[in-house]
């Protein structure tokens, strides 16, 4: 009985080794044949091409993207809205108004960007990462972003947004202390204030410090600070910003 068992195990092992070696031999043979057929193609690229072809879709390799268009001309859009309204073309009037709103929002976003400092906490602003984004949903999706950084991987990103939905979520945290305060020794999420405005500060090992400040009814300002040494450094930096000026520009009280 024992002998039969040993024999069976040996047989299984031999068959497995044989199968593996046969597979590898088959692969080697296949590679050699492909190299003979197309000597300029190496194995790795042929594998990639096979993968691309497997989903049946070609991969895009050309195309310069979309060209940047100028923000809507607010005065022209307002004139169009009035003309369309007078002609009772209400759909056109609405479209022109939404374009005018977008134009105003982009100008306002650029105005706020200009008001932000060129250097902060020893970091220089990277103008290539400035973003002002607006959709035609009237005010609720205006987002402004600026990034400050240095060569030592220290970075601060500020996002100023006016989004009623997000502001509502933040308010939920601000009004419910139990949701953010913990009694553990290590506290990674807590409420604070920046120049009298309610705020939340959060720390995560991978992303660093995030400070969210509520501005008036529906605006928020977020600092994402990577490689900042302490919470105090983040707070000092945030306090150096003209928050009241930004609030005023956004029409917040």
């Amino acid at each position, binding site marked *: 009985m024992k002998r039969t068992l040993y024999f069976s195990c040996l047989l299984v092992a031999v068959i497995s080794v044989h199968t593996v070696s046969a597979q590898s031999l088959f692969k080697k043979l296949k590679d050699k044949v492909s190299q003979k057929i197309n000597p300029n193609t190496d194995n790795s690229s042929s594998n990639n091409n096979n993968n691309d072809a497997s989903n049946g879709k070609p991969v895009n390799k050309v195309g310069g993207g979309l060209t940047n268009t100028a923000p809507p001309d*607010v*005065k022209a859009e*307002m004139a169009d*809205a*009035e003309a369309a*309204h007078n002609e009772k073309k*209400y*759909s056109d*009037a*609405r479209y022109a*108004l*939404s374009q*005018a*709103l977008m134009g*105003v*929002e982009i*100008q*306002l976003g650029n*105005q706020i960007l200009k008001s932000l400092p060129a250097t902060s906490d020893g970091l220089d602003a990277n103008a290539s990462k400035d973003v002002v984004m607006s959709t035609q*949903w*009237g*005010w*609720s999706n205006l987002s402004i972003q600026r990034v400050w950084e240095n060569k030592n991987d220290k970075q601060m990103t500020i996002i100023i947004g006016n989004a*009623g939905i997000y502001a509502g979520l933040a308010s939920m945290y601000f009004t419910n202390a139990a949701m953010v305060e913990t009694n553990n020794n290590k506290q990674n999420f807590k409420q604070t204030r920046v120049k009298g405005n309610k705020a939340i500060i959060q720390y995560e090992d991978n992303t660093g410090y995030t400070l969210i400040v509520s501005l008036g009814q529906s605006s928020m300002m977020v600092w994402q600070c990577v490689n900042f040494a302490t919470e105090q450094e983040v707070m000092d930096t945030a306090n150096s910003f003209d928050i009241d000026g930004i609030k005023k*520009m*956004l*029409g917040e009280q």
Partner: protein
Amino acid sequence: MKNFILLIALAAVVNVCRAQDFNKAMATAKASYSAGKLEDAHFALQQAMQEVDLTVGKEVLKLLPSKLGTMTSVSKDDNVSSNVGFVGATIHRAYGQGAQNADISIIDNSPLIAMTNSLLNMPMMGMMTGGKDKNVKVQGYKARLEKQAGSTPDKSSYELQIPLGNALFTFKVNDCTDDQILALADTVPLQEIAKLIE
């Protein structure tokens, strides 16, 4: 006859007031923008947009039939509201005050539009509702007809949802059959409404 003339006069006055409100908001927007007061210009433009939405709503109400079958419209329940932001204008009209009632509501930029379109285009999703709804066509528009409980156990009510671009047209009739609600829906000028609110 006197009442009819009064009604027309009232509608004309309301229209003039609406146009004045729009012009006033536009004048404020232009003045604020020229003065560099962007936030004020923004607020005034929003006001102007609300006025446009309200005007469109009033125009849609004019298109809706004053009578649906035996049910007459309840003019005191006519309502148009405008919200700048997530949901646009909301238009509402009710019909009948007796045993049978109907209700039309049109919500521009309705959050339910995506769900209704999914149900209309994915029959599997419709099948999961327990056979209480079906997809139908009204004047060439795809629509979702849902059976609901009537005023008594032996009666049924129906709700018809028709996506018109970004707007959702909802038509409810209580104590009726599916054929009756579809016949009533055929009397509503959907194409003209869609053109106005697009």
